[in-house]
Structure formats: structure tokens, C-alpha cells
């Protein structure tokens, strides 16, 4: 695979590039529809989450991927059954492409007992082997290291399966991220890493976090190829992901895909993004990944304005149902807090969980040999 570097000006304003070469050839009408639905579902589901967040239904924080949906969707769609993916903070679209249902996401954020984490963890921190999903944990950079182990199992078993993960520009500065990339490269693992250059890391601009100008150069530290894509162009992303996946599947190792994109909202709901220059937001708003894909789909005859509106309506209806259903579900039963710490159920049962109760103590009081001891002591203490 060739290392290309395509940088587009922030304000390029154009739609999706109408190339139909390479891996894109394999995409038919149905695929185009699916991609669009996933893009829209991602955005609509996040908007729904925002609504219930404001209603106080979301238990913890809420992180959105507004403006970055194309990278997640394009990548997730390029994977095959049996492949694994580890999302990062703004990759909901990839999870939906993998088969995660809106219900699952709503349950996670609202801490339902029915959630994939049984209410014990939040956001996208679920691991679902059936769908090939490895949940990240909050400490950034760690999930790639763990995904390496999944990829290692593929290599060991000679299975042509591929692992895929995402990493923020901010997260790329962590030690674990480096160790993960270095090990994937050294062991020639079937891994694709998308580096999301979305210009921000919480409240700090990427330019302050790193002196890196061409993010594809990061690959130099690992001796692997890198390719830069317009992360807001779902087809370009898909193409690059499909190529990198094919390369990994063929045993040729890791590829880094740099996605040039932009985080259109604050880090999380509580962040009003006041530190972001207006011009930047305006420029990127003109390069919305969904709007430009809509234009493309209509222009090239894949869809009509009406058919797209139908997709959106269908998504909205589905989300209505999902939200109602999930909100009717209960929190987990309190005692579930004790379950599945260890793989041996007896061990979980034997742990002295108790605080106030401490049943053993009562027994102690009756069993205690105070009388005898008191005497011994007195005689000794004299």
C-alpha cells in the first residue's frame, strides 16, 4: 500500500469526491443507503441522548461525535464479520455499523440493568465478542494494547481476521498508545489504527499538544505505512479503511490512517466550547460529512431528497420506540454490585462484602473466650 497524503483546505466546501475506483466499486446502492442510514442514525441517536441528558436521564457524562460521523461509519462499514474493533470516545458510528443497537447505547448511558455492562460501566465501555467489539476504558491509549492481544490470537491461530481501532490526536501522546503501536508494528499484527486529527483534545488545541504537522509522519516511529484521508468524506474513509484492512488480512501488518476531521462540539455536554475560534467552527460546518454525502447521493442518482427523508423518518421512529422502551427499564438491583468480580463464583460469595451487617461478628461475641483471657491477663499484668 502506498503512502498518500491528501490534505484539503478547511473551507474547500465541496461535496464527496465522486470517484468510483478501488474498493468503492464494490459498494452498491444498498451499501450507499446503509452508509447514509448509519451516518444519520449516529447523529440522531446522539441528539436523542442529548435530549435525555438534559432531562436528567443520563447518569454520567455524554460525549458526542458531531462532525466526525463519517470516519467512524466508513471504518466500521469496511470490516467483516469476525473482525474486531475497539472504539475510542467518538466512534459511535462504527459500533452501530458493527451491529450495536440504539437500545444498547441508550441503556449504557442511562445505566440500565439490561445494559451491556449491566449498569456497571458507562458510554461505549462494553465488550461484545459476538460482534467483535472490545470496549475501551477511560485511561486513553490502553485499548490498542489490549486489541493487540486479540490480533495476536488471530495470528497464532492463523485466522485471516483483522483488528481496527481509533485514537485521538490527544490520546496519541500517551505512553500506552505508543507502546501499543510499537508492539503492533514489531509483531506485525493485523491491525489498522485510525488517528483522528480532530484539532482538539478536550480544551487544548492539537497544536499545543503536539508539534506534529503532518500526522501521517507519526507512522515513522513504527516503520509502518500511513495514509491521510478527508475524515469527513465517508467514501474516502471507507476506501482507505478497506485497503488497510485488506493489507492487514494479507499478513502485511499495521496501517495508520490519519483522519483529518473536526470536533464540532465541546469535549462533553458540560463543555460549552468557548475556547474555540468561531471561524474554525464556521469553516468546518461547511464541510459537514452528512450534508455533503446527501448532496453526493442525490447528484449521482443513488437517492432522492424524498428517499433520504424517509430514512431519517424511519430512524426517528425507531429512536422514539427505543427511548421509550429503555427508559421504562429499571436500574440494576443494588446487590448486583457484588457480582462477577472474580471468575470463581464461590470466591465472590466468600468475600466479606458486609459493612454494617457483618454477620460473623455476632458469632464472635458469643464464642469469645473473654473470661479465661481476662484472668490470664490480670495475673500476667500484675
Amino acid at each position, binding site marked *: 500500500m502506498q503512502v498518500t497524503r491528501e490534505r484539503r483546505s478547511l473551507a474547500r466546501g465541496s461535496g464527496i469526491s465522486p470517484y468510483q475506483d478501488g474498493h468503492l466499486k464494490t459498494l452498491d446502492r444498498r451499501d450507499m443507503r446503509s452508509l447514509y442510514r448509519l451516518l444519520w442514525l449516529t447523529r440522531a441517536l446522539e441528539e436523542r441522548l442529548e435530549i435525555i441528558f438534559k432531562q436528567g436521564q443520563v*447518569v*454520567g*457524562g455524554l460525549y458526542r461525535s458531531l462532525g466526525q460521523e463519517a470516519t467512524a461509519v466508513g471504518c466500521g462499514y469496511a470490516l467483516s464479520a469476525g473482525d474486531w474493533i475497539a472504539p475510542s470516545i467518538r466512534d459511535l458510528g462504527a459500533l452501530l455499523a458493527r451491529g450495536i443497537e440504539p437500545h444498547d447505547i441508550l441503556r449504557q448511558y442511562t*445505566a*440500565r*440493568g439490561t445494559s451491556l*455492562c449491566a*449498569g*456497571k*460501566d*458507562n458510554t461505549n*465501555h462494553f465488550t461484545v465478542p459476538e460482534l467483535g467489539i472490545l470496549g475501551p*476504558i*477511560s*485511561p*486513553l491509549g490502553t485499548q490498542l494494547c489490549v486489541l493487540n492481544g486479540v490480533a495476536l490470537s488471530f495470528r497464532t491461530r492463523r485466522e485471516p481476521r483483522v483488528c481496527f481501532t481509533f485514537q485521538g490526536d*490527544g*490520546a496519541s*501522546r*500517551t*505512553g*500506552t498508545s505508543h507502546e501499543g503501536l510499537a508492539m503492533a508494528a514489531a509483531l506485525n499484527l493485523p491491525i489498522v489504527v485510525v488517528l483522528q486529527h480532530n484539532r482538539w*483534545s*478536550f*480544551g*487544548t*488545541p492539537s497544536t*499545543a*499538544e*503536539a508539534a506534529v504537522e503532518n500526522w501521517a509522519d507519526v507512522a515513522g516511529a513504527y516503520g509502518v505505512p500511513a495514509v491521510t484521508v478527508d475524515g469527513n468524506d465517508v467514501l474516502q474513509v471507507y476506501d482507505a479503511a478497506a485497503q488497510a484492512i485488506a493489507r492487514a488480512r494479507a499478513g502485511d501488518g499495521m496501517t495508520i490512517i490519519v483522519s483529518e476531521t473536526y470536533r464540532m462540539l465541546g469535549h462533553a455536554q458540560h*463543555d460549552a466550547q468557548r*475556547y474555540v475560534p468561531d471561524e474554525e467552527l464556521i469553516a468546518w460546518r461547511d464541510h459537514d460529512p452528512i450534508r455533503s454525502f446527501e448532496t453526493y447521493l442525490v447528484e449521482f442518482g443513488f437517492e432522492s431528497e424524498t428517499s433520504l427523508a424517509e430514512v431519517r423518518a424511519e430512524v426517528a421512529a425507531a429512536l422514539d420506540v427505543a427511548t421509550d422502551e429503555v427508559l421504562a427499564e429499571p*436500574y*440494576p*438491583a*443494588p*446487590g*448486583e*454490585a*457484588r457480582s462477577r*468480580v472474580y471468575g470463581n463464583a464461590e470466591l465472590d460469595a466468600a*468475600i*466479606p*462484602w458486609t*459493612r*454494617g*451487617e*457483618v454477620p460473623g*461478628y455476632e458469632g*464472635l*461475641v458469643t464464642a469469645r473466650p473473654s473470661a479465661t483471657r481476662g484472668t490470664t491477663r490480670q495475673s500476667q499484668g500484675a
Partner: protein
Amino acid sequence: MASVETRETTYLTAIREALQEEMRADETVFMLGEDIGVYGGAFKVTEGFLEEFGPDRVIDTPISEAAIVGAAIGAAHMGLKPVAEMQFIDFIAPAFDMIVNFAAKSRYRTGIGAGLVIRGPCGAGARSGPFHSQSVESYFANVPGLKMVAPARAYDAKGLLRASIRDPDPVLFFEHKFLYRRIKEELPTEGEVLVPLGEARTHRPGNDLTIVTYGAMVFKSADAADRVAAEDGSEVEVIDLRTLRPLDTKTIVESVRRTGRLLIVHEAPRFGGFAGEITAQVCEEAFEWLDAPIRRVTAIDTPVPYAPTLEDYYLPGEEDIVSAARWLLAY
């Protein structure tokens, strides 16, 4: 009104003021961490700092806790007084090696100390799930060379942070995020609020039972003590450790020798928690004065779960403290 002018100050504001006052008074004090400058800190502790103190003293770093602590060590070697922020104290884990092996051992090995502060929000109760809720003190308890502080009151948060910044050794400063905006006190507007490290504080006096605790559990323990006093007429002494290392054994032992009964309350899980060290020291120095077993009320031995039902179950509650206290009093 007292002769000293006071102002209602939250735990969070007290921390901000401590930082500001130390930075104003001593130009060698500086801060580094993630999103502390332009953004003003995840909890807005350092809001306005960049403007006041400039980019040399309020440094936005990459996401790299080991490098943050490392830079703090090096700067401390050169006579600066670094205050490193961990966005959440949970993210101290990637800096574990740097703290335990570089910072803590530096003076012993080379004679050159590392006077720095690592501060960050700890603790559960804010519905933040397994990675934004931990109490990490026990991870560091067996590491000679470190000091650890865990204030409960706004006054102590301010006074201890100032003392920590002036301290010649690496200090881990645990701010309980649940208290940030919930705890408010009248603090003097002028003059130095300074609380020396290593001194526990009797939060509530009593002669019938000693509760030793710290952080957010001080308030739950005090509430429990009030209930026991009101309902049973027993007087429970609540000791707020404030500093975990060096531990104020003297104050603990004095109290236990007086009350004959000890309950230790902490928010971290039970097994391997900080209560163990306290129990061991009390056993060594006040065994003969004990009229009952030493007991612990702690979180359960699991990660901190996310769902409200689970987190409430996880955390030690007032009820748990009351019932353990009653058991001990009746023993």
C-alpha cells in the same frame, strides 16, 4: 462576628485560593497538567490562572501523566515548586512508575529531593463510573518517600495545599470531587490559612468510641455520630486524619486509649485498604486499651460501579456507620 473577616468559601474555591496565593507569593510555584490553561481545568479550579500567571506558570501539557510527573520532578530538582494536576486522580495510574520509582526514591538515592505536589479529584458518589471515582491512596501507601493528604473541610483543603506546596517532599493531594461544591465554610479573607502536614483533627469530640476517617467519609461519620448521640446518648469521637502519610498516630492512639473502641471508615474498598495500617498501629500501641475489636466500614471489594443503585450500595453509608458504631458500643 469574629474579629477576622470571613467569606463563604467552597472546598473548590479554597483549593483555587491556595494555588493563587502560593503562586502570587512565590514565583517558583507553577502548575502543569491537561487543560488547566486555556480551558481552566476540568473542574475549573484554575480558571483565570493562565491570564493571571502566564503560560510559563500555567502549562497545558499533552495527555501524558508520566511525563507531567517527570517534568515536575525535574523542575523540583531545579528549585521550582511544581503543582501537577491529574485531571482525575484515576489517571495517576499511568504515572505510577514515575511517582513510586523516581519521585519517591529520589532523595534517598541521590540526596536531591523532589518537592512537588500531585493533586487531583478523587472519590465516588458523583455517578462517574469505574474510572473517574477511585480512591487511590492505598496504591501508594507502601511507598516510603511519599506524603499523602486528603482534606475534608475547605479550611483544610486550603491550608494543607499551601503546606504541601511548601513541603520538600512529593505530596499526593487527594481532593474529593464530591465535596468540591458541596462543602462551604467561612474562611478568613486575610492572613494565612496554613495547616501543617501530619496532624489529624478532632472533627467531633467524644469519649465512648473513636471513628478514624478522612475525605468525604468525615461528614458521613459525623452525621452517624450525631445520630448515635441523639438516639442512644453515646458520644462518638470523629477524627479526620487530613494527612494519611505521615500518619498522626499520636492523636489516634490518644483517642483510642481514651475511648477503648475504634471504628475505621474509608471510602476505598476493604481488602488492602488504608484501615489496615491504622489497625496495625493501634494494635501495636493501644492494644491493652481496646475494649472491643477494631472494626472497618468501607466500600465493598469491587470497582466503583456506574448505576446509582450500584454505587449507593458500593459506598459506605451513614447507616452502615451507625450500625457498626452501635455494635462496638454494645460490645
